């Protein structure tokens, strides 16, 4: 992704002048400022396009010269870049997110400043990191020549100066911006800024924070997978040494040194580890490619391929071989220490059952059928093996439970967030503004339940950039955890009061009664904190100010509208939006709408994809647990070959034997499941803790009981499936051979 940030030449800083009408000489003087590596001007605008007869907001991103881009380079994924006026490039994300499906050759109607429509042709699709990320967050993005944006919007000049700094340290960037501003101030005395300065630190990009959070989860799963795999190696090597105990004894009897015996086993272990590593790398490369592509889509809003990292490759070889050697260490030591006497006395099966206190306890477990009783007791004969088998199963269960919990928590917050915002349709303020009469018109549409004015403004407070202006009677379902919500009087008087989100408050140590100074585009203003809100809107970093207050300090007279429809079904919402559009346009209002269900579906789709990825990542952990179970059960079957012969001799049928070993496998699996519950709980808490710290948000932890029940069902089902392999071995044994087996 950082590669992509570099190749797209994503800006380090963006200044937002209202109109920067710069001559080539002036541009050259800006470019000559120390530390400026590249600098382009562009025109950004919000307008609307027609999508299936409806008007939808869209972001226009101007490009100074498609053939000679130096900052936020728009690259092409299909079709061509525009080579004349009235052509545009649709961001590849538009189609992927379902916001706008147009493709090369299609015509697009773009709303102009007069309220009319201008027809553009799509020349191709493409994008650039910084602006592509707006699609998932906000609205479809279209790229066209700066001059086209300006003529559509009737803007006199570009309104964005995108700069790549050579040195991106905060001091160097601040110094650079100061110099740029002073040149601009000297050249264009009337210049004002329409938006605050945007700075991207090195190593960050739109979505990098989410990406980082996800990476942590990956590390956790990979760690669990690794631990499971090491336990598996540990058991396998132990079993191997156990099975060859007689051979080891013989080797020593004829003069084999303990060292050479251990080295022989080490060689076997490393061979297996080597094969595993090679197989792992072979599977890992396409998997990581897929993951990278998926994650960059989800979090970066752009698609990148991954390159093979030599470091990762080297690391996997070190872990593959080193981990194998470390995990087989106990078995090697045992192999070195086995005495000839011990080897000769070995009879494979523990003959001391009944002497340990555990056996007495287990003997009291009430199991109805004899064969199940045998199975459960057998599971406790090789305590070490049973625990080593149950542990990876436990880790697998823990992984399932933890991800279940995290996903349920996250999805829940997500749904809450959407419900909290209280709107199915957002109507954007245009010209003339959406006044109270417009509100009444909106509410006259049959599908509309109610409509509230709302305004969304951008201020700067320690890097956070959003303020919600809400009416005192808004549908926003606040959850004040300290202080209070603002009152009707404060709203009426446009008092400078604010309710801040919980995470923002804790991040900046804000308390009720404090005054904060926020940077608006018209200068700094002070706001008195009257309350703290516990809801998760804007990751609990939102600021809520009375609607009238925002209008007052922004110098606006009207705001947008939140519309709640009678039901949230897409069909109803679409009908309502068309109805509102019609009634407002008939009364001379310009209007654009956003349908919230598109965002909601977008979010749900992302969540579903995340679930898929998590499942794909968790699968190896589950697989290792199950492989461990198969191998342990196979060892158990081999160990008890003689016993199986005896059972057959005294009348045991195939199904009796199957039932017995099945009970044993299930007993081990249930033990693993029991281990998995507390581990999974801890793991879920840990992952959420990581998320909370990274998101600066407070989640409501969820660990529903039904997931525990489901994990049991999954564990038992998986066990019954994998155990068929060793079971087949049992029933195929001929009693004659089984009895002679030694």
């Amino acid at each position: 992704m950082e590669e992509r940030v570099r190749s797209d030449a994503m800006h380090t800083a963006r200044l937002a002048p209202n109109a920067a009408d710069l001559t080539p000489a002036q541009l050259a003087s800006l470019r000559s400022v120390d530390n400026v590596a590249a600098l382009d001007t562009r025109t950004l605008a919000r307008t609307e396009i027609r999508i299936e007869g409806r008007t939808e907001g869209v972001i226009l991103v101007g490009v100074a010269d498609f053939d000679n881009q130096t900052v936020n380079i728009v690259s092409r994924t299909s079709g061509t870049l525009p080579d004349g006026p009235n052509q545009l490039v649709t961001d590849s994300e538009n189609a992927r997110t379902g916001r706008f499906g147009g493709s090369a050759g299609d015509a697009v109607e773009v709303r102009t400043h007069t309220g009319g429509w201008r027809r553009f042709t799509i020349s191709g699709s493409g994008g650039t990191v910084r602006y592509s990320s707006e699609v998932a967050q906000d609205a479809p993005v279209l790229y066209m020549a700066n001059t086209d944006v300006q003529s559509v919007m009737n803007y006199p000049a570009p309104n964005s100066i995108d700069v790549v700094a050579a040195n991106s340290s905060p001091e160097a960037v601040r110094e650079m911006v100061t110099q740029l501003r002073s040149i601009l101030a000297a050249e264009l005395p009337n210049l004002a800024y329409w938006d605050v300065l945007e700075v991207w630190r090195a190593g960050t990009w739109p979505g990098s924070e989410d990406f980082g959070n996800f990476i942590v989860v990956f590390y956790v799963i990979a760690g669990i997978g690794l631990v499971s795999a090491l336990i598996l190696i540990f058991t396998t090597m132990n079993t191997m040494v156990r099975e060859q105990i007689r051979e080891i004894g013989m080797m020593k009897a004829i003069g084999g040194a303990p060292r050479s015996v251990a080295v022989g086993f080490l060689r076997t272990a490393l061979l297996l580890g080597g094969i595993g590593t090679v197989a792992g790398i072979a599977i890992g490369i396409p998997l990581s490619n897929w993951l990278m592509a998926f994650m960059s889509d989800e979090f970066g809003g752009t698609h990148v391929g991954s390159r093979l990292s030599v470091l990762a490759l080297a690391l996997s070889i070190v872990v593959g071989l080193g981990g194998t050697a470390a995990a087989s260490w106990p078995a090697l030591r045992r192999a070195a220490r086995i005495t000839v006497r011990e080897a000769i006395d070995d009879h494979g099966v523990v003959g001391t059952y009944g002497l340990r206190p555990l056996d007495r306890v287990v003997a009291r477990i009430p199991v109805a059928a004899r064969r199940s009783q045998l199975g459960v007791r057998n599971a406790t004969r090789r305590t070490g093996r049973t625990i080593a088998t149950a542990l990876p199963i436990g880790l697998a269960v823990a992984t399932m439970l933890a991800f279940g919990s995290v996903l349920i928590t996250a999805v829940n917050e997500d749904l809450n967030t959407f419900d909290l915002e209280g709107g199915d349709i957002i109507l954007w303020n245009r010209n003339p503004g959406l006044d109270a009469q417009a509100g009444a018109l909106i509410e006259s549409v049959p599908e509309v339940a109610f409509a509230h004015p709302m305004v969304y403004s951008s201020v700067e407070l320690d890097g956070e950039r959003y303020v919600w202006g809400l009416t005192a009677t808004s549908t926003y379902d606040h959850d004040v955890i300290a202080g209070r919500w603002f009152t009707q009087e404060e709203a009426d008087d446009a008092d400078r009061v604010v309710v801040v989100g919980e995470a923002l408050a804790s991040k900046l140590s804000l308390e009720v009664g404090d005054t904060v100074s926020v940077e608006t585009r018209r200068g700094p203003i002070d706001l008195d904190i009257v309350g703290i809100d516990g809801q998760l809107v804007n990751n609990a970093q939102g600021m809520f100010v009375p609607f009238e207050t925002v209008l007052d300090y922004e110098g606006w007279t009207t705001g947008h509208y939140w519309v709640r429809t009678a039901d949230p079904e897409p069909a109803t919402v679409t009908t309502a939006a068309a109805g509102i559009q019609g009634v407002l346009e008939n009364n001379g209002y310009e209007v654009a709408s956003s349908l919230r269900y598109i965002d909601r579906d977008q979010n749900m789709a992302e969540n579903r994809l995340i679930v898929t990825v998590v499942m794909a990542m968790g699968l190896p952990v589950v697989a290792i647990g199950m492989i461990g179970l198969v191998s342990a059960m196979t060892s158990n079957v081999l160990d008890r070959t003689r016993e199986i012969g005896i059972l057959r001799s005294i009348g045991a049928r195939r199904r009796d034997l199957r039932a017995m070993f099945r009970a044993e496998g299930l007993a081990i699996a249930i033990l693993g499941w029991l281990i998995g519950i507390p581990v999974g709980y801890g793991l879920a808490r840990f992952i959420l803790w990581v998320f909370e710290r990274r998101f600066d948000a407070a989640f409501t932890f969820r660990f529903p009981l039904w997931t525990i029940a489901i994990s049991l069902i999954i564990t038992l089902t998986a066990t019954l499936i994998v155990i068929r392999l060793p079971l087949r071995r049992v029933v195929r044994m001929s009693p004659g051979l089984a009895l002679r087996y030694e």
Partner: protein
Amino acid sequence: MNTQSLASATPGARLLEIERHIISGVPIIQLREIEKVYRSGRVQYPALRGVDLEVAPGELMAIVGPSGSGKSTILNIITGIDRPTAGSVNVTGRDLSRLDEEALAVWRGGHIGIVFQFFQLLPTLTAHENVMLPLDFARLGSVGERSDRAASRLAQVGLSGHLNQFPAELSGGEQQRVAIARALACDPSIVVADEPTGNLDTDTAAEMFSVLGDVNRDGTTVVYVTHDPALAELARRVVSIRDGSVTGDDRR
């Protein structure tokens, strides 16, 4: 569904079966021209080379012979644990070649009691549970009935005081007695024992034989293998095996 009533397997019912054999003169075990060749890789080893053997119901028979002569192989063929390479096996009126593994297991459970050389009790089951096991497999009677029957079998071998001990807590002689009780659990028509006293001291071995003798007196056919000439003497019929063939058959 598979639960057979205990009544049909009571000693009385079995006596009738045995008498039918005696009256009809049909042997309870009948081996004809049995050959058994063990193959391991390319090597073929003929363990039995044409064995003919008939055992009448209620007989007490010993099989003797040097190590490797094929004694255990004969027992395994009688019990259906091994299948002959050639020849026919008829035991308790059944042609064993017509039974598959599953049917053989069920048949053994109902008709044959086996006592192994190294006791071979299930280490995770108590003495009482070990004896109940064949009854569980045969699904004979209710759980209560099985428990009572197992307890009475243990009493029969003089082990009423050790019901709830695990094999590891019993002496070798006690373990072998549990093994005999287990072999008798389902009231088999035939008890087969492969060196049942091989691991026991002389006194314990003698005790063991008195138990087997009692079983035989109740009408059960007993076939055992031994190395010990003194123990062979206790049988009314001694069959000698050498190199896979019957070389002697003495009746007293």
